[in-house]
């Protein structure tokens, strides 16, 4: 009886694994892939693309503490420098539309970031020419987007 139960368990587990494996296959018309636009400025990123995809958050965290606490404002690994290059040409921002650089991946990966609750999403020059409250619609869209990501 015991061996029969064990056999049953093995069969069930195998079936479950097979089913899970089948489900993991990409389906046509599944979740839309993120749009990763090439940076408008510059030839290459400050680190390899593969490294940046995995580790950009660690670099940003270290740099942010050095900037806030010690006043070190080097350009490499600074969020401002990321935004300078990666702001979309259409919106001039990294996080105001769905296809913008930061939002695109983070919504795909269901990662909620709150960087842009405080930080400007636009490069220095663009933000300087844009008066406050000039784009309430895009800002509202960005907030909705972030809310969507958090759900």
């Amino acid at each position, binding site marked *: 009886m015991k061996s029969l139960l064990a056999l049953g368990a093995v069969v069930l587990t195998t079936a479950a694994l097979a089913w899970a494996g089948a489900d993991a296959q990409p389906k046509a018309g599944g979740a839309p892939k993120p749009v990763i636009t090439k940076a408008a400025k510059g030839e290459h990123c400050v680190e390899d693309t593969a490294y940046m995809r995995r580790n950009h958050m660690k670099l940003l965290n270290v740099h942010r503490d050095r900037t806030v606490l010690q*006043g070190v*404002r080097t350009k490499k690994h600074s969020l401002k420098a990321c935004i300078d290059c990666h702001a979309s040409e259409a919106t001039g921002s990294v996080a105001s539309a769905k296809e913008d650089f930061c939002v695109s991946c983070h919504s795909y990966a269901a990662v909620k970031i709150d960087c842009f609750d405080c930080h400007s999403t636009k*490069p220095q020059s663009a933000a300087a020419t844009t008066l406050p409250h000039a784009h*309430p619609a895009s800002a509202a869209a960005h907030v909705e987007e972030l809310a969507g990501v958090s759900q």
Partner: protein
Amino acid sequence: MNELKTMSEQAPDSPERRRFVGAAAAVAGLAVVPGVMLYEVADARPEEQPASSAVRWGMLVDATRCASGCDDCVSACSTENGWTPVAQSAHPRQAPQWIRKLQLEDPLTQAQINLPMLCQHCAEPPCVDVCPTGASFKRADGIVLVNRHTCIGCRYCMMACPYKARSLVHEPLNDTQKPDVPRGMGCVEACTFCVQKVDRGDGTTACAEACAAAGHNAILFGDLNDPESEISKRLRELPTKQVRADLKLNLGVRYHGI
């Protein structure tokens, strides 16, 4: 150019000449490429070097020169740091104020004093003492700041501050922040001595610039630790006071004429 020639006729290493050449280099840097001037200014700290305790930034406010009805310092601060002027705010009573213009009147003599009130950048800041998360901190060069990454918006620091210098951001800012000055809902904030300008090597603040531009020259910003700095010289000459000196907080902002 004529001025340069007359200066060069002086002793080659005279301090006047060196200061003049330094200033000329700074002006030339400004004129050519704004980004490059960082390296041209004599006082600028290299950007990879942390703020140092050899410097203590401070401010001297000459209340005798502060004009009644003028709020150029307040509007310059608002423009530089991106906070909405109180008059334009939907909720003026809770709107952030990094600097306020005060008019005081002696009830006995009716003598009036005008002065700007802002974060006093204490050497012993009560806001730092009470902060439960360590978000409120004093940088090595004496500037008292809020680390918004750790601020939980509890407002203990607002209660602790004897100068009513801090504000809480109550409303979402919807991407209207300046790239150099991140601010956000739920965080406490206050005057930063224009830390972005200080780190850039400007050696001044938006309010001091605006006051000078208006011709009042009531605000002087500089290094209190450098005995040769303009502010140290003026502090030696003028009698100045700390507001609530009884609290022994060793303030970075000193007032003359109060």
